[in-house]
């Protein structure tokens, strides 16, 4: 097995086992599961970045020019951003969800692996090394925001249902999670990473498009889908300034935003033909 494929296999195994450990930790709060999950998350993430480096070193082709490569970076960046958040704010309880999603996206990316192919002329640009990592990193930040929004919503609705039963196991488990305002702040911080990144991504994409296609904006489905996602997160940021909307409603907007990101990332590439169709 070539080294890069071996490293992908290592990452997939690490994410899967890490997801199992941290998901169990989410429910049981057994510390040893956390202590197992954290190294696995780090190992998987490092293996992925090394794999991308090895792939570039051996093929001399920028590894992010197809869905396999970009999904690989997406998974790696999601885990990397999450690890950063978890270390900073002690958020290991949600790691199982991030690692599970990373494993799913990485496994899905592997199904698109076709071997080494030189890039088509429009992708032979230094912009590929700027635009693609930035956009994919923004998607990764939104994935982290999505996970914490889901945790927020689960906690919110669970508190509505079980909150009154003080002393019950569910109420005790809920109280071990960060408070709703704290979760909301975490989501805000993740979106605050993603929104500038996707803005830079759209701008660098426009600069690249200007060089390759003759216009910085072509109303291509990929461009407009990215604009759509940008609008959603812009709405999120505006709503977050309103006290009455902060919390439940903004977290639903964050969930919708991530659905739009996945549509923009995978749906448009796979189902809708356009100038970005070659990325598959």
């Amino acid at each position, binding site marked *: 097995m070539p080294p890069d494929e071996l490293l992908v296999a290592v990452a997939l195994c690490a994410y899967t086992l890490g997801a199992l450990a941290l998901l169990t930790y989410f429910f049981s709060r057994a510390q040893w599961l956390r202590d197992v999950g954290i190294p696995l998350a780090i190992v998987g993430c490092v293996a992925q970045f090394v794999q991308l480096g090895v792939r570039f070193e051996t093929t001399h082709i920028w590894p992010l020019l197809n869905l396999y490569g970009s999904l690989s970076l997406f998974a790696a960046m999601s885990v990397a951003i999450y690890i950063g958040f978890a270390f900073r704010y002690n958020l290991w309880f949600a790691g199982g969800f991030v690692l599970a999603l990373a494993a799913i996206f990485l496994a899905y990316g592997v199904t698109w692996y*076709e071997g080494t192919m030189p890039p088509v002329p429009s992708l032979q640009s230094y912009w590929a090394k700027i635009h693609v990592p930035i956009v994919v990193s923004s998607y990764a930040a939104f994935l982290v925001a999505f996970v914490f929004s889901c945790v927020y919503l689960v906690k919110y609705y669970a508190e509505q249902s079980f909150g009154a039963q003080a002393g019950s196991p569910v109420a005790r488990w809920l109280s071990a999670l960060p408070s709703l305002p704290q979760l909301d*702040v975490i989501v805000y911080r993740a979106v605050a990473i993603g929104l500038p990144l996707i803005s830079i991504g759209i701008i660098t994409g426009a600069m690249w498009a200007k*060089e390759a296609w003759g*216009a910085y904006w072509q109303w291509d489905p990929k461009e*407009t889908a990215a604009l*759509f996602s940008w609008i*959603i997160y812009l709405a999120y940021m*505006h709503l977050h300034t309103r006290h009455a909307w902060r919390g439940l409603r903004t977290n639903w907007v964050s969930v919708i935003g991530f659905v739009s990101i996945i549509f923009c990332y995978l749906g448009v590439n796979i189902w809708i033909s356009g100038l970005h169709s070659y990325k598959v």
Partner: protein
Amino acid sequence: MTAAARQFYAEFVRTFGNVLFAVSLFVVWGALTLVGVIVDQGQDPSIYFQSYAAPIARAILRLDFDNVYHSPWYVGIIGLILLSLAVCTFKRVIPARLPPLRPVSVEKIPLHATFEAEGDAASVRRRLADSLTARGWRMRERLFGGVEWSFADKHNWARRGVLVAHAGFVIVAAGTTLYWARGFSGDLAVVTGQTSQVAQTKMLMRLDKFAYTIDPIMTKSGMVYQPIDYVSHVTVTGNDGIPKRMIVRVNHPIDVDGTLYYQSSYGFGTQFLISRDGRADPNLSSRVFLEGDSFDLPGSERSVLYERFTPTVDKQSGMPTADPRVSDPAVVVAVSQAGNDLGEALVPLGGAIDLGGGWRLVPKRYVLYSGFQYRNDPGVPLVGIGAFVLLSGLVIAFYFLPARLYVRVDPISPQRCQVGIAATTVKGYDVFESEFARLMAAVKSESA
């Protein structure tokens, strides 16, 4: 101004200055954008009737959803957003940027701390000020009703982040408008050896040579013919009248007198030998037809459409192959009589086809043509500046948290004071909660 006009103005400002109204506009903008992603844009009406049920296709066409990004709806919603942005900027963002220094009820602000400190009021105030200044807080003192208040601000300049982002959005919109008003763009196909001119410019472009590289690559799913390079060698004559040799590649456009020319496509032109009763038609036989061109046969109702060029035909099956490199080429032509299709045929280069009525067609030779896009966009610098300003605003707004501390020191005894500190930020209290707790712990220990 009459009372009615004042009332209208007040209502207008109230509505357009409301953040929720702005978000509603975003929702409509997003929905229209999504329509453009899902519905193929700029297609022939018949395509929509083929793809959708008749009522939906009719709705798409009547609502301009087939060209939604240039529809009155889309332009109108962006106009409304700009209007809302302007009103919000002047009525909400600018006034809110510089809140006045005023006393507060410390206990009523969710982020607050109270503790006792040793020393008289002046020395406690000084120690607090030293502690906060060392952490980057800017201190100011004011007297309100005989009570001395201290105010500490951090990242006050970042209160302008939203204002900067709004300004960036307006500059981008101005740059885009400049292109609509003054710019132009289009497509140009130049056949090898021929010269073409863009209507809006005086530039002449001659295609000396076009070359492409396509590599066959074996992948896990089978053979793929991967394009590697498209390159046009051209001679251009601009306003100075001096011909210059240039090379146009994908990602490497050329600039001629402020208009950019891009490599966008290529194709195969074909010269046919078209004869009737054995005598060549000199007009039709001298022309090079591009894929998609059609011509009428003189003295008949018949027309011929040169549909496409097929670079390689399989010798055994006689059918086109997937290989886009020219090996055994053929052309596909379709014949119609008074608008009725009579059929199409694959004709190898050098082969012949009988068109009826004594007419005969022989694809004689092929010649490559190169497709260029050209664009003159005077708004690009503005859009670039606007994008930079917008981004700067977003970074300022997201990564710097302007916060204000309200500090009150009340003597309890000659050598002991009660300190009350409250904090507000432009993003609510939760986002500053942990930092405030750390800050208070540090300040308390330093001023105790």
